């Protein structure tokens, strides 16, 4: 099971705070992104903006995702 968290405009577009996905085997972040965008088409217009983190660290598309990981999906940050 992988948990995907959404924040700010991504949460608003998705209409949900989180999504839980069964993963039968490890997959790349890129593959996970494709699954999330298929399951939540409302995120597709934001696709080019979205940033992704795995277990609290920004991650590259090739990063391997395993069951138990927490993935986060959000737009560019604007704190301060």
């Amino acid at each position, binding site marked *: 099971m992988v948990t995907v968290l959404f*924040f*700010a405009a991504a949460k608003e577009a998705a209409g949900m705070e989180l999504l839980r996905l069964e993963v039968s085997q490890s997959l790349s972040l890129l593959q996970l992104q494709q699954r999330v965008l298929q399951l939540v088409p409302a995120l597709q217009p934001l696709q080019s903006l979205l940033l992704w*983190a795995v277990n609290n660290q*920004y991650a590259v598309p090739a990063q391997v995702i395993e069951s138990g990981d927490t993935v*986060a999906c959000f737009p560019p940050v604007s*704190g*301060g």
Partner: protein
Amino acid sequence: MIQLTDQPLDYAAITESVRDPAAGAVVLFLGTVREFTAGQQTEQLEYEAYREMALASLQQLVQEAASMYPLVKVAVVHRLGVLQLTDVAVAIAVSTPHRAQAFAAGQWLIDTLKQRVPIWKREHYVDGRVQWQHPSQEAAVAPVVGEAS
């Protein structure tokens, strides 16, 4: 001191927390809620964070700053929730032996926080419109990936 809080920031206490006999300089930066941005009038601002990652990211920021500048002490506190005009959204206090290092470290910390820490602001304009702010929207440049752990 590294904190996210829903309460108003006590910037006097935050400044006090970095005072030290080894420091000859203390610099405090406050980010405050501004009324006009590009001609648009703000009524209030709302901040949301990915708290767990934001705290980890702030810790990392402070560690990096400490490797670049001779910090004696440092405090970074960001407020979340709904803020009114002039409210303090972020306070960064640093102390160093000499003033140039304190100004430089404070500048680096706020600049890097704004690029990297997962916190978002939503503008509530006086005309009733509400809009998430994504400053790097045009560039859509991801922050540094694979930061040193």
